[in-house]
Protein backbone atom coordinates (compact mmCIF):
# COMPACT_ATOMS: atom_id res chain seq x y z
CA UNK A 1 0.00 0.00 0.00
CA UNK A 2 1.25 3.49 -0.85
CA UNK A 3 2.69 5.63 1.89
CA UNK A 4 1.35 9.11 2.67
CA UNK A 5 3.51 11.70 4.41
CA UNK A 6 1.78 13.60 7.21
CA UNK A 7 3.45 16.72 8.59
CA UNK A 8 2.98 16.84 12.36
CA UNK A 9 1.96 20.05 14.09
CA UNK A 10 2.98 19.80 17.73
CA UNK A 11 4.11 21.97 20.62
CA UNK A 12 7.07 20.44 22.48
CA UNK A 13 5.79 16.94 21.73
CA UNK A 14 2.07 17.62 22.31
CA UNK A 15 0.34 16.83 18.99
CA UNK A 16 -2.38 19.28 17.96
CA UNK A 17 -5.78 17.91 16.98
CA UNK A 18 -5.67 18.88 13.25
CA UNK A 19 -2.76 16.45 12.81
CA UNK A 20 -4.83 13.57 14.20
CA UNK A 21 -7.59 14.54 11.74
CA UNK A 22 -5.00 14.42 8.94
CA UNK A 23 -4.15 10.84 9.92
CA UNK A 24 -7.81 9.87 9.42
CA UNK A 25 -7.75 11.37 5.91
CA UNK A 26 -4.32 9.91 5.11
CA UNK A 27 -5.61 6.39 5.82
CA UNK A 28 -8.16 6.79 3.02
CA UNK A 29 -5.26 7.12 0.57
CA UNK A 30 -2.57 4.90 2.02
CA UNK A 31 -0.37 4.21 5.03
CA UNK A 32 0.44 7.32 7.06
CA UNK A 33 4.09 8.08 7.70
CA UNK A 34 4.34 11.02 10.12
CA UNK A 35 7.12 13.60 10.10
CA UNK A 36 7.70 15.35 13.43
CA UNK A 37 10.35 18.07 13.72
CA UNK A 38 11.89 20.13 16.48
CA UNK A 39 11.85 20.01 20.26
CA UNK A 40 9.97 16.96 21.58
CA UNK A 41 9.57 15.39 18.12
CA UNK A 42 10.07 11.81 19.35
CA UNK A 43 7.48 12.31 22.13
CA UNK A 44 4.76 12.55 19.49
CA UNK A 45 5.17 8.91 18.43
CA UNK A 46 2.78 7.23 20.88
CA UNK A 47 -0.28 9.31 20.00
CA UNK A 48 0.54 9.21 16.28
CA UNK A 49 0.79 5.41 16.44
CA UNK A 50 -2.59 5.22 18.19
CA UNK A 51 -4.08 7.13 15.26
CA UNK A 52 -2.59 5.12 12.44
CA UNK A 53 1.00 6.20 11.80
CA UNK A 54 2.97 3.18 10.66
CA UNK A 55 6.20 5.11 11.00
CA UNK A 56 7.25 8.35 12.68
CA UNK A 57 10.25 10.12 11.19
CA UNK A 58 11.78 12.56 13.65
CA UNK A 59 14.49 15.18 13.55
CA UNK A 60 15.56 17.87 15.97
CA UNK A 61 18.12 20.62 15.40
CA UNK A 62 18.45 24.20 16.61
CA UNK A 63 17.80 25.37 13.02
CA UNK A 64 14.08 24.49 13.33
CA UNK A 65 13.59 27.07 16.08
CA UNK A 66 16.18 29.65 15.08
CA UNK A 67 15.26 30.19 11.41
CA UNK A 68 11.96 30.62 9.60
CA UNK A 69 10.24 27.88 7.55
CA UNK A 70 13.10 26.69 5.28
CA UNK A 71 14.76 24.23 7.71
CA UNK A 72 11.40 22.44 7.97
CA UNK A 73 11.10 22.38 4.18
CA UNK A 74 14.56 20.79 3.99
CA UNK A 75 13.51 18.14 6.52
CA UNK A 76 10.20 17.39 4.82
CA UNK A 77 12.03 17.07 1.51
CA UNK A 78 14.45 14.59 3.12
CA UNK A 79 11.43 12.56 4.31
CA UNK A 80 9.91 12.78 0.85
CA UNK A 81 13.13 11.45 -0.72
CA UNK A 82 13.31 8.63 1.85
CA UNK A 83 9.71 7.48 1.40
CA UNK A 84 8.51 8.39 -2.15
CA UNK A 85 4.92 8.86 -0.96
CA UNK A 86 1.64 8.99 -2.90
CA UNK A 87 0.73 12.33 -1.29
CA UNK A 88 1.95 14.84 1.28
CA UNK A 89 -0.60 16.20 3.76
CA UNK A 90 -0.15 19.18 6.07
CA UNK A 91 -2.45 21.14 8.35
CA UNK A 92 -3.64 24.52 7.01
CA UNK A 93 -1.73 26.67 9.48
CA UNK A 94 0.05 29.74 8.09
CA UNK A 95 3.47 28.11 8.58
CA UNK A 96 2.50 24.71 7.19
CA UNK A 97 1.01 26.30 4.07
CA UNK A 98 4.32 28.01 3.40
CA UNK A 99 6.22 24.77 3.99
CA UNK A 100 3.83 23.00 1.62
CA UNK A 101 4.28 25.64 -1.07
CA UNK A 102 8.06 25.50 -1.07
CA UNK A 103 8.11 21.71 -1.01
CA UNK A 104 5.73 21.65 -3.99
CA UNK A 105 8.08 23.79 -6.10
CA UNK A 106 11.05 21.63 -5.14
CA UNK A 107 9.42 18.35 -6.06
CA UNK A 108 7.67 19.76 -9.14
CA UNK A 109 4.15 19.20 -7.81
CA UNK A 110 0.91 21.10 -7.64
CA UNK A 111 -0.53 22.27 -4.35
CA UNK A 112 -4.04 22.49 -2.96
CA UNK A 113 -4.63 24.53 0.17
CA UNK A 114 -7.44 24.62 2.72
CA UNK A 115 -9.10 21.36 1.72
CA UNK A 116 -12.15 20.55 3.85
CA UNK A 117 -12.27 16.90 2.79
CA UNK A 118 -10.10 14.40 0.96
CA UNK A 119 -10.92 11.13 -0.77
CA UNK A 120 -9.15 8.59 -2.93
CA UNK A 121 -10.01 8.93 -6.65
CA UNK A 122 -9.18 7.24 -9.97
CA UNK A 123 -6.66 9.95 -10.84
CA UNK A 124 -5.31 10.44 -7.33
CA UNK A 125 -6.69 12.07 -4.18
CA UNK A 126 -9.67 14.40 -4.69
CA UNK A 127 -9.86 17.43 -2.40
CA UNK A 128 -13.01 19.32 -1.51
CA UNK A 129 -12.49 23.07 -1.12
CA UNK A 130 -14.80 25.81 -0.10
CA UNK A 131 -14.50 28.91 -2.31
CA UNK A 132 -15.66 32.54 -2.30
CA UNK A 133 -16.47 32.84 1.38
CA UNK A 134 -17.89 29.30 1.37
CA UNK A 135 -20.55 30.10 -1.25
CA UNK A 136 -19.10 27.38 -3.54
CA UNK A 137 -17.85 23.86 -2.99
CA UNK A 138 -15.21 22.64 -5.46
CA UNK A 139 -13.55 19.29 -6.08
CA UNK A 140 -9.98 19.48 -7.26
CA UNK A 141 -6.91 17.39 -7.86
CA UNK A 142 -3.21 17.84 -8.26
CA UNK A 143 -2.56 16.96 -11.90
CA UNK A 144 1.26 17.18 -12.00
CA UNK A 145 3.58 15.53 -9.51
CA UNK A 146 2.76 14.14 -6.06
CA UNK A 147 -0.23 15.90 -4.47
CA UNK A 148 0.70 18.36 -1.73
CA UNK A 149 -2.47 19.21 0.19
CA UNK A 150 -3.13 21.32 3.26
CA UNK A 151 -6.29 20.57 5.24
CA UNK A 152 -8.34 22.88 7.44
CA UNK A 153 -8.99 21.99 11.08
CA UNK A 154 -12.27 20.16 11.83
CA UNK A 155 -12.36 18.59 8.35
CA UNK A 156 -12.34 14.97 9.53
CA UNK A 157 -13.11 13.01 12.68
CA UNK A 158 -10.26 11.89 14.92
CA UNK A 159 -10.37 8.07 14.79
CA UNK A 160 -8.12 5.74 16.75
CA UNK A 161 -6.49 3.10 14.49
CA UNK A 162 -3.54 1.51 16.25
CA UNK A 163 -0.44 1.03 14.09
CA UNK A 164 3.24 0.32 14.64
CA UNK A 165 4.41 3.92 14.84
CA UNK A 166 8.04 2.87 14.65
CA UNK A 167 10.26 5.85 15.38
CA UNK A 168 13.09 6.47 12.95
CA UNK A 169 15.60 9.29 13.00
CA UNK A 170 15.49 11.36 9.84
CA UNK A 171 18.83 12.57 8.49
CA UNK A 172 18.51 16.19 7.32
CA UNK A 173 21.13 18.24 5.53
CA UNK A 174 20.18 21.89 5.54
CA UNK A 175 20.14 23.89 2.31
CA UNK A 176 21.98 27.17 1.74
CA UNK A 177 18.65 29.00 2.23
CA UNK A 178 17.95 27.39 5.62
CA UNK A 179 19.58 30.13 7.67
CA UNK A 180 18.28 33.01 5.52
CA UNK A 181 15.65 34.33 7.91
CA UNK A 182 16.72 34.49 11.52
CA UNK A 183 14.21 34.37 14.38
CA UNK A 184 15.81 37.00 16.60
CA UNK A 185 13.35 36.58 19.46
CA UNK A 186 10.13 34.78 20.24
CA UNK A 187 7.45 35.79 22.73
CA UNK A 188 5.09 32.88 23.41
CA UNK A 189 1.42 33.71 23.71
CA UNK A 190 -0.11 33.29 27.15
CA UNK A 191 -2.61 30.48 27.35
CA UNK A 192 -6.15 31.50 28.33
CA UNK A 193 -7.06 27.96 29.34
CA UNK A 194 -9.85 28.02 26.74
CA UNK A 195 -9.88 25.71 23.71
CA UNK A 196 -7.83 26.66 20.64
CA UNK A 197 -10.03 28.83 18.39
CA UNK A 198 -9.58 26.84 15.17
CA UNK A 199 -10.00 23.47 16.91
CA UNK A 200 -12.89 24.25 19.27
CA UNK A 201 -16.22 22.45 18.92
CA UNK A 202 -18.03 25.64 19.98
CA UNK A 203 -17.00 29.25 19.27
CA UNK A 204 -18.67 32.27 20.85
CA UNK A 205 -17.82 35.56 19.11
CA UNK A 206 -18.40 39.21 19.88
CA UNK A 207 -18.42 42.19 17.51
CA UNK A 208 -18.83 45.94 17.52
CA UNK A 209 -22.13 45.50 19.34
CA UNK A 210 -20.22 44.41 22.46
CA UNK A 211 -19.25 48.07 22.67
CA UNK A 212 -16.02 48.06 24.66
CA UNK A 213 -13.23 45.84 25.97
CA UNK A 214 -14.78 46.05 29.44
CA UNK A 215 -17.90 44.24 28.14
CA UNK A 216 -16.14 41.28 26.58
CA UNK A 217 -16.41 39.38 29.88
CA UNK A 218 -20.07 38.82 28.91
CA UNK A 219 -18.92 36.91 25.82
CA UNK A 220 -16.23 35.09 27.82
CA UNK A 221 -18.73 34.02 30.48
CA UNK A 222 -21.00 32.48 27.83
CA UNK A 223 -17.99 30.76 26.24
CA UNK A 224 -16.92 29.33 29.58
CA UNK A 225 -20.41 28.03 30.35
CA UNK A 226 -20.29 26.09 27.05
CA UNK A 227 -16.59 25.15 27.16
CA UNK A 228 -16.11 27.24 24.03
CA UNK A 229 -13.37 29.34 22.44
CA UNK A 230 -13.83 33.11 22.13
CA UNK A 231 -13.74 34.85 18.76
CA UNK A 232 -14.12 38.46 17.68
CA UNK A 233 -14.95 40.43 14.55
CA UNK A 234 -12.36 42.67 12.99
CA UNK A 235 -14.29 45.74 14.15
CA UNK A 236 -13.90 44.57 17.77
CA UNK A 237 -10.23 43.74 17.22
CA UNK A 238 -9.44 47.01 15.45
CA UNK A 239 -11.06 48.91 18.31
CA UNK A 240 -8.58 47.17 20.62
CA UNK A 241 -11.27 45.31 22.58
CA UNK A 242 -9.89 41.84 21.93
CA UNK A 243 -6.55 40.42 20.64
CA UNK A 244 -6.03 40.04 16.90
CA UNK A 245 -5.24 36.34 17.38
CA UNK A 246 -8.94 35.84 18.20
CA UNK A 247 -10.21 37.48 15.00
CA UNK A 248 -12.51 35.28 12.93
CA UNK A 249 -12.72 35.91 9.20
CA UNK A 250 -10.82 36.30 6.00
CA UNK A 251 -7.77 37.90 7.59
CA UNK A 252 -8.26 36.20 10.91
CA UNK A 253 -8.90 32.58 11.78
CA UNK A 254 -11.14 30.42 9.74
CA UNK A 255 -13.28 28.30 12.05
CA UNK A 256 -15.59 25.40 11.37
CA UNK A 257 -17.05 24.38 14.73
CA UNK A 258 -20.18 22.37 15.52
CA UNK A 259 -21.72 25.56 16.93
CA UNK A 260 -20.93 29.23 16.24
CA UNK A 261 -22.62 31.96 18.27
CA UNK A 262 -22.24 35.52 16.93
CA UNK A 263 -23.22 38.38 19.23
CA UNK A 264 -23.31 41.98 18.00
CA UNK A 265 -21.80 40.99 14.64
CA UNK A 266 -23.46 42.18 11.43
CA UNK A 267 -22.15 39.38 9.20
CA UNK A 268 -19.99 41.19 6.61
CA UNK A 269 -18.71 38.96 3.77
CA UNK A 270 -15.17 38.98 5.20
CA UNK A 271 -16.45 37.74 8.55
CA UNK A 272 -18.62 35.11 6.88
CA UNK A 273 -15.57 33.85 4.98
CA UNK A 274 -14.20 32.64 8.30
CA UNK A 275 -17.27 31.01 9.86
CA UNK A 276 -19.78 30.11 7.18
CA UNK A 277 -18.86 26.41 7.23
CA UNK A 278 -19.84 26.12 10.91
CA UNK A 279 -22.40 23.31 11.36
CA UNK A 280 -24.93 25.23 13.46
CA UNK A 281 -24.99 29.03 13.45
CA UNK A 282 -26.69 31.18 16.06
CA UNK A 283 -26.82 35.00 16.16
CA UNK A 284 -27.90 37.62 18.62
CA UNK A 285 -28.32 41.06 17.09
CA UNK A 286 -30.64 43.95 17.80
CA UNK A 287 -31.04 44.71 14.08
CA UNK A 288 -33.51 42.30 12.46
CA UNK A 289 -32.07 43.25 9.04
CA UNK A 290 -28.46 42.27 9.88
CA UNK A 291 -27.09 39.98 7.12
CA UNK A 292 -25.91 37.44 9.70
CA UNK A 293 -29.56 36.37 10.09
CA UNK A 294 -29.45 34.98 6.50
CA UNK A 295 -27.05 32.31 7.78
CA UNK A 296 -28.53 31.31 11.09
CA UNK A 297 -30.22 28.17 12.28
CA UNK A 298 -31.49 30.18 15.22
CA UNK A 299 -31.46 33.94 15.67
CA UNK A 300 -32.55 36.23 18.46
CA UNK A 301 -33.39 39.82 17.57
CA UNK A 302 -32.54 41.61 20.76
CA UNK A 303 -30.02 43.42 22.90
CA UNK A 304 -27.03 41.20 23.61
CA UNK A 305 -26.64 42.76 27.05
CA UNK A 306 -29.96 41.15 28.00
CA UNK A 307 -29.88 37.98 25.92
CA UNK A 308 -26.31 36.77 26.47
CA UNK A 309 -26.22 36.87 30.31
CA UNK A 310 -29.66 35.19 30.44
CA UNK A 311 -28.42 32.48 28.08
CA UNK A 312 -25.26 32.00 30.18
CA UNK A 313 -27.30 31.62 33.37
CA UNK A 314 -29.67 29.18 31.73
CA UNK A 315 -26.80 27.07 30.28
CA UNK A 316 -25.06 27.03 33.66
CA UNK A 317 -28.30 26.03 35.40
CA UNK A 318 -28.98 23.22 32.93
CA UNK A 319 -25.44 21.89 33.28
CA UNK A 320 -25.39 22.22 37.07
Amino acid at each position, binding site marked *: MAEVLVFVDHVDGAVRKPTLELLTLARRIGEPVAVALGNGAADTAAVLAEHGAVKVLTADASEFADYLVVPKVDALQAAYDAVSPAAVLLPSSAEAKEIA*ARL*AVRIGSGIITDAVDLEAGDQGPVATQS*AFAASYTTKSRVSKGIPVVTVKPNSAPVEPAPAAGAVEALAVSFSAQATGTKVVSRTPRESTGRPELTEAAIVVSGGRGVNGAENFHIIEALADSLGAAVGASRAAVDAGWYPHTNQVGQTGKSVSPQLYIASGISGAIQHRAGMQTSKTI*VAINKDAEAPIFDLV*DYGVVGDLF*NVVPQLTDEVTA*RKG
Partner: protein
Amino acid sequence: MSLRIVVCVKYVPDATGDRHFADDLTLDREDVDGLLSELDEYAVEQALQIADAADDAEVTVLTVGPEDAKDALRKALSMGADKAVHVEDDDLHGTDAIGTSLVLAKAIEKTGYDLVISGMASTDGTMGVVPALLAERLGVPQVTLLSEVSVEGGVVRGRRDGDSASEQLEASLPAVVSVTDQSGEARYPSFKGIMAAKKKPVESLDLDDLGIDADEVGLGGSWTAVDSAAARPARTAGTIVKDEGEGGKALAEFLAGQKFV
Protein backbone atom coordinates in the same frame (compact mmCIF):
# COMPACT_ATOMS: atom_id res chain seq x y z
CA MET B 1 22.59 52.86 -4.54
CA SER B 2 18.94 52.87 -5.19
CA LEU B 3 16.69 50.42 -3.32
CA ARG B 4 14.58 48.59 -5.90
CA ILE B 5 11.23 47.50 -4.47
CA VAL B 6 8.79 45.35 -6.46
CA VAL B 7 5.24 45.09 -5.07
CA CYS B 8 3.08 42.20 -6.28
CA VAL B 9 -0.54 43.25 -6.62
CA LYS B 10 -3.44 41.09 -7.73
CA TYR B 11 -6.57 42.13 -9.58
CA VAL B 12 -9.53 40.31 -8.02
CA PRO B 13 -13.33 40.21 -8.25
CA ASP B 14 -15.06 42.43 -5.69
CA ALA B 15 -15.81 40.22 -2.67
CA THR B 16 -19.08 42.06 -2.07
CA GLY B 17 -20.27 41.16 -5.58
CA ASP B 18 -21.83 37.88 -6.69
CA ARG B 19 -18.66 35.86 -7.40
CA HIS B 20 -18.95 32.63 -9.34
CA PHE B 21 -17.21 30.18 -11.64
CA ALA B 22 -17.32 30.21 -15.45
CA ASP B 23 -18.09 27.12 -17.57
CA ASP B 24 -14.41 26.15 -17.70
CA LEU B 25 -14.38 26.25 -13.86
CA THR B 26 -12.13 29.30 -13.74
CA LEU B 27 -13.11 32.53 -12.09
CA ASP B 28 -15.93 34.29 -13.97
CA ARG B 29 -14.69 37.82 -14.49
CA GLU B 30 -17.63 38.99 -16.63
CA ASP B 31 -20.30 39.70 -14.06
CA VAL B 32 -18.35 41.10 -11.14
CA ASP B 33 -16.30 44.29 -10.94
CA GLY B 34 -12.60 43.78 -10.43
CA LEU B 35 -10.31 45.78 -8.18
CA LEU B 36 -6.90 45.84 -6.53
CA SER B 37 -7.05 43.15 -3.82
CA GLU B 38 -7.60 45.15 -0.63
CA LEU B 39 -4.94 43.15 1.17
CA ASP B 40 -2.36 44.23 -1.42
CA GLU B 41 -3.01 47.89 -0.56
CA TYR B 42 -1.16 47.14 2.69
CA ALA B 43 1.82 45.90 0.67
CA VAL B 44 1.83 49.07 -1.45
CA GLU B 45 1.62 51.18 1.71
CA GLN B 46 4.59 49.47 3.37
CA ALA B 47 6.60 49.71 0.15
CA LEU B 48 5.97 53.45 0.00
CA GLN B 49 6.94 53.89 3.66
CA ILE B 50 10.14 51.88 3.20
CA ALA B 51 10.94 53.91 0.07
CA ASP B 52 10.35 57.18 1.95
CA ALA B 53 12.72 56.10 4.71
CA ALA B 54 15.44 55.15 2.20
CA ASP B 55 17.84 57.68 0.62
CA ASP B 56 16.93 56.65 -2.85
CA ALA B 57 14.33 54.07 -3.77
CA GLU B 58 12.10 53.06 -6.64
CA VAL B 59 8.76 51.27 -6.24
CA THR B 60 7.54 49.10 -9.12
CA VAL B 61 4.12 47.47 -8.95
CA LEU B 62 3.71 44.18 -10.75
CA THR B 63 0.63 42.23 -11.70
CA VAL B 64 -0.10 39.06 -13.66
CA GLY B 65 -3.62 39.27 -15.02
CA PRO B 66 -5.99 40.13 -17.87
CA GLU B 67 -6.21 43.52 -19.57
CA ASP B 68 -8.49 44.98 -16.89
CA ALA B 69 -5.81 44.26 -14.28
CA LYS B 70 -4.37 47.64 -15.36
CA ASP B 71 -6.96 49.12 -12.99
CA ALA B 72 -5.14 47.53 -10.07
CA LEU B 73 -1.83 48.95 -11.31
CA ARG B 74 -3.38 52.43 -11.74
CA LYS B 75 -4.67 52.36 -8.19
CA ALA B 76 -1.22 51.44 -6.85
CA LEU B 77 0.41 54.11 -9.00
CA SER B 78 -2.05 56.71 -7.75
CA MET B 79 -1.12 55.76 -4.17
CA GLY B 80 2.46 56.73 -5.06
CA ALA B 81 4.31 53.86 -6.75
CA ASP B 82 6.75 54.99 -9.47
CA LYS B 83 6.12 52.55 -12.30
CA ALA B 84 4.23 49.39 -13.21
CA VAL B 85 4.78 46.09 -14.97
CA HIS B 86 1.84 44.16 -16.39
CA VAL B 87 2.27 40.55 -17.47
CA GLU B 88 -0.56 39.93 -19.86
CA ASP B 89 -0.99 36.97 -22.22
CA ASP B 90 -4.05 35.04 -23.41
CA ASP B 91 -2.26 31.81 -22.56
CA LEU B 92 -2.25 32.80 -18.87
CA HIS B 93 -5.99 32.18 -18.45
CA GLY B 94 -6.55 29.67 -15.65
CA THR B 95 -2.99 29.64 -14.27
CA ASP B 96 -2.70 28.15 -10.77
CA ALA B 97 -0.48 29.18 -7.86
CA ILE B 98 2.62 27.28 -8.99
CA GLY B 99 2.31 28.77 -12.49
CA THR B 100 1.56 32.27 -11.20
CA SER B 101 4.67 32.17 -9.02
CA LEU B 102 6.76 31.11 -12.01
CA VAL B 103 5.55 34.08 -14.05
CA LEU B 104 5.93 36.53 -11.16
CA ALA B 105 9.46 35.28 -10.39
CA LYS B 106 10.59 35.69 -14.00
CA ALA B 107 9.08 39.17 -14.19
CA ILE B 108 10.71 40.17 -10.89
CA GLU B 109 14.11 38.95 -12.10
CA LYS B 110 13.69 40.83 -15.35
CA THR B 111 12.68 44.04 -13.58
CA GLY B 112 15.53 43.79 -11.06
CA TYR B 113 14.90 43.95 -7.29
CA ASP B 114 16.32 44.24 -3.81
CA LEU B 115 13.01 43.72 -2.04
CA VAL B 116 9.76 42.06 -3.10
CA ILE B 117 6.62 42.92 -1.10
CA SER B 118 3.33 41.01 -1.29
CA GLY B 119 0.03 40.95 0.51
CA MET B 120 -0.70 38.17 3.05
CA ALA B 121 -3.23 36.48 0.72
CA SER B 122 -5.36 37.37 -2.25
CA THR B 123 -9.03 38.01 -1.53
CA ASP B 124 -10.15 35.45 -4.17
CA GLY B 125 -7.88 32.39 -4.09
CA THR B 126 -6.84 33.22 -0.49
CA MET B 127 -4.12 30.56 -0.53
CA GLY B 128 -1.45 32.68 1.16
CA VAL B 129 1.35 30.80 -0.58
CA VAL B 130 2.63 33.04 -3.38
CA PRO B 131 5.22 34.92 -1.25
CA ALA B 132 6.78 31.64 -0.04
CA LEU B 133 6.72 30.30 -3.60
CA LEU B 134 8.52 33.43 -4.82
CA ALA B 135 11.21 33.16 -2.13
CA GLU B 136 11.79 29.52 -3.09
CA ARG B 137 12.01 30.32 -6.79
CA LEU B 138 14.19 33.42 -6.36
CA GLY B 139 16.44 31.67 -3.81
CA VAL B 140 16.21 34.55 -1.32
CA PRO B 141 14.99 34.74 2.30
CA GLN B 142 11.24 34.93 3.02
CA VAL B 143 10.19 37.31 5.76
CA THR B 144 6.46 36.75 5.63
CA LEU B 145 3.20 37.64 7.38
CA LEU B 146 4.65 40.72 9.03
CA SER B 147 2.55 43.09 11.08
CA GLU B 148 5.52 45.45 11.33
CA VAL B 149 8.37 45.90 8.85
CA SER B 150 11.43 48.12 8.34
CA VAL B 151 14.53 48.14 6.14
CA GLU B 152 17.87 49.59 7.16
CA GLY B 153 21.41 49.07 5.94
CA GLY B 154 20.50 46.21 3.63
CA VAL B 155 18.64 44.30 6.36
CA VAL B 156 14.88 43.77 6.60
CA ARG B 157 13.37 43.36 10.07
CA GLY B 158 9.83 42.54 11.01
CA ARG B 159 7.36 41.07 13.47
CA ARG B 160 5.36 37.94 12.68
CA ASP B 161 2.38 37.36 14.97
CA GLY B 162 1.75 33.64 14.84
CA ASP B 163 -0.71 31.36 16.61
CA SER B 164 1.51 30.37 19.47
CA ALA B 165 4.11 33.18 19.54
CA SER B 166 5.09 36.56 18.23
CA GLU B 167 8.49 36.50 16.50
CA GLN B 168 11.03 39.17 15.56
CA LEU B 169 12.61 38.26 12.22
CA GLU B 170 15.64 39.48 10.34
CA ALA B 171 17.14 38.82 6.89
CA SER B 172 19.60 40.37 4.50
CA LEU B 173 18.41 41.80 1.18
CA PRO B 174 17.45 40.71 -1.38
CA ALA B 175 14.37 39.19 0.25
CA VAL B 176 10.64 38.54 -0.18
CA VAL B 177 8.34 40.12 2.39
CA SER B 178 4.60 39.77 2.90
CA VAL B 179 2.59 42.04 5.17
CA THR B 180 -0.71 41.54 6.98
CA ASP B 181 -3.64 43.91 7.39
CA GLN B 182 -2.22 44.73 10.83
CA SER B 183 0.80 46.45 9.28
CA GLY B 184 -0.84 49.87 9.08
CA GLU B 185 -3.74 51.53 7.26
CA ALA B 186 -3.20 52.03 3.55
CA ARG B 187 -3.36 55.62 2.28
CA TYR B 188 -6.06 56.88 -0.06
CA PRO B 189 -4.88 58.18 -3.42
CA SER B 190 -4.97 61.98 -3.52
CA PHE B 191 -6.37 63.88 -6.50
CA LYS B 192 -2.79 64.83 -7.34
CA GLY B 193 -1.77 61.19 -7.08
CA ILE B 194 -4.56 60.12 -9.43
CA MET B 195 -3.56 62.73 -12.01
CA ALA B 196 0.15 61.87 -11.71
CA ALA B 197 -0.61 58.15 -12.14
CA LYS B 198 -1.92 58.74 -15.65
CA LYS B 199 1.58 59.76 -16.76
CA LYS B 200 3.51 57.00 -15.04
CA PRO B 201 4.95 54.22 -17.23
CA VAL B 202 3.19 50.85 -17.45
CA GLU B 203 5.34 48.21 -19.15
CA SER B 204 3.54 45.25 -20.75
CA LEU B 205 5.25 41.87 -20.93
CA ASP B 206 4.06 38.60 -22.45
CA LEU B 207 5.23 35.02 -21.99
CA ASP B 208 7.79 35.34 -24.82
CA ASP B 209 9.38 38.33 -23.11
CA LEU B 210 9.83 36.20 -20.00
CA GLY B 211 11.00 33.08 -21.82
CA ILE B 212 8.12 30.98 -20.47
CA ASP B 213 6.53 28.20 -22.54
CA ALA B 214 2.77 28.45 -22.91
CA ASP B 215 2.41 24.83 -21.77
CA GLU B 216 3.85 25.69 -18.35
CA VAL B 217 0.93 28.01 -17.55
CA GLY B 218 -2.78 28.45 -18.19
CA LEU B 219 -5.49 25.87 -17.67
CA GLY B 220 -3.65 23.25 -19.77
CA GLY B 221 -0.30 23.70 -18.06
CA SER B 222 -1.76 23.87 -14.58
CA TRP B 223 -0.37 21.66 -11.80
CA THR B 224 -3.89 21.39 -10.38
CA ALA B 225 -7.29 20.62 -11.93
CA VAL B 226 -10.73 21.65 -10.76
CA ASP B 227 -13.23 18.87 -11.57
CA SER B 228 -16.40 20.51 -10.31
CA ALA B 229 -17.73 23.64 -8.64
CA ALA B 230 -21.18 23.76 -7.11
CA ALA B 231 -22.95 26.65 -5.47
CA ARG B 232 -23.48 25.81 -1.82
CA PRO B 233 -27.15 25.06 -1.30
CA ALA B 234 -28.92 27.95 0.35
CA ARG B 235 -29.26 27.34 4.07
CA THR B 236 -32.77 26.42 5.05
CA ALA B 237 -34.28 29.44 6.73
CA GLY B 238 -33.61 29.36 10.44
CA THR B 239 -35.89 30.20 13.32
CA ILE B 240 -35.74 33.87 14.23
CA VAL B 241 -37.34 35.10 17.43
CA LYS B 242 -37.67 38.56 18.87
CA ASP B 243 -36.49 38.97 22.43
CA GLU B 244 -39.42 39.96 24.64
CA GLY B 245 -37.48 39.24 27.82
CA GLU B 246 -37.11 35.48 27.46
CA GLY B 247 -34.84 35.37 24.35
CA GLY B 248 -31.86 33.94 26.23
CA LYS B 249 -33.97 31.16 27.70
CA ALA B 250 -35.48 30.30 24.32
CA LEU B 251 -32.00 30.12 22.85
CA ALA B 252 -30.86 27.82 25.68
CA GLU B 253 -33.84 25.60 24.88
CA PHE B 254 -32.74 25.46 21.22
CA LEU B 255 -29.16 24.61 22.19
CA ALA B 256 -30.37 21.89 24.54
CA GLY B 257 -32.51 20.46 21.72
CA GLN B 258 -29.39 20.30 19.56
CA LYS B 259 -27.49 18.56 22.41
CA PHE B 260 -25.03 21.42 22.91
CA VAL B 261 -26.08 21.76 26.53
